[in-house]
């Protein structure tokens, strides 16, 4: 069962790359971005990493909806 839904607000993202370093299974970045979501509904064992990436993003570009 999906427990969360992850999106990147492309107009907010500045390609800082923190999300990729924190949660590489979920986010990817090519060049200056914007970041891409590799796994829109990551498994629950990635919750801590996804929450950290959300909080770490300097432009509030990551949206995590708890399902």
């Amino acid at each position, binding site marked *: 069962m999906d427990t969360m839904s992850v999106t990147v*607000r*492309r*107009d*907010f*993202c*500045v*390609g*800082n790359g*923190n999300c990729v*370093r*924190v949660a590489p299974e979920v986010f990817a970045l090519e060049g200056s*971005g*914007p970041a891409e979501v590799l796994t829109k509904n990551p498994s629950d064992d990635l919750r801590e990493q996804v*929450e*950290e990436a*959300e*909080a*770490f993003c*300097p*432009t*509030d570009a990551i*949206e*995590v*909806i*708890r*399902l």
Partner: protein
Amino acid sequence: MLGESLLLLDGEEHYKRRRLETGLFTSSALRYYESKALAPVIGRTLARYLDGSRPGEAVKMDLVPAVLDMLYGLGAAVLGIDGVDTPERADHFKALFIKMSDGATVTHSANDHDQLLREAVEARAEFIADFYSASLARRRVLVARWRADEIAKEDLPRDLLTSLILNEVFGDDPYLPLREMVLYMIASIRTTLHALPHVVGHLAEWTSSHPADEAKLVDPTFLRNATTEAIRLHAGLPSVVRIAKESVTLASGLQVEAGRTVSILLDQVNKDPSVFGPDADTFDPYRKTTATGPKGRGKVAEWGLAFGSGAHVCIGRRLVIGDEQGRHDEGTEVRGTAFGILGLLYAYGMTTDPTRPAKLDQGTFYDAYESFPIVLNSVENLVSQADH
């Protein structure tokens, strides 16, 4: 007083420390502070102001010291300092932190710098003896028990001090956590304490000309928008200073050579009509911004640059203003300290006090309030809340 704290680190060192401390500001951590720390602190603080008042009578109080007490109480929980649980202990904790903060910001003081630093060092010694040592010892025991599988990770406190112990940040410098604490306390209090009286003042004027919006004073979306708008107009600092790591030409054509110090004047950039509209210097809780940086990226926040930008953007901004409503499911959203305090005060019928005008702090050229008298008119609700 702030050496090697997060504020002054850069590059990889900054990344590592920031990542470690980001754990204090995740959604689940923020919801934890809101329910376990902020709500009780607000209740305790309001109960102090109720002392001596009679049921049925409106309660007069000053928003500035009340908010200051609430923020110091919340700050103690986020930092990981125990024993700030009685009015006397809370006052002692606040007095020591004010002295340490004055020492940390001595560069901007017009008072005797040597004396301020002397008092800050004395306050630090007293703080270690009266609060810090016991808080540190308790957390070290808990972390050791967790490492021995005697307790679950969920049983560890969620605070800065525990994070620093877990990640073994101390090294050979026993004062590093203290400097980090002073930084967090200054940063968390300055913006919120500065902004909240402005929010209330602006909303009093706004609702007098838009009476239909009075009903929205307890609405989370309206109150968040009003708060971010007031923070845009009254940022906690007049400017932020950066040093250019490499030469750069800005979109405006301005060239900045590597090594140059650049001061960003927040009052000017946050009232830029090309970004916030022709009425950028006025308060509008319905303002929307659509401006972005180059190539349509890096959308300008509603609060402008009040929380900074980039790698050093304020780590605690969600703690202050919460998330846009609707971004998370009902019950899991982060509401923010500003809504936590103002929403409750408005629920108790907060108005400005017509008999006592607010006073700006004459000790600074900045627009900080020294006193902002308010009246709580629905005191019955307040009495029953405090009784519980």
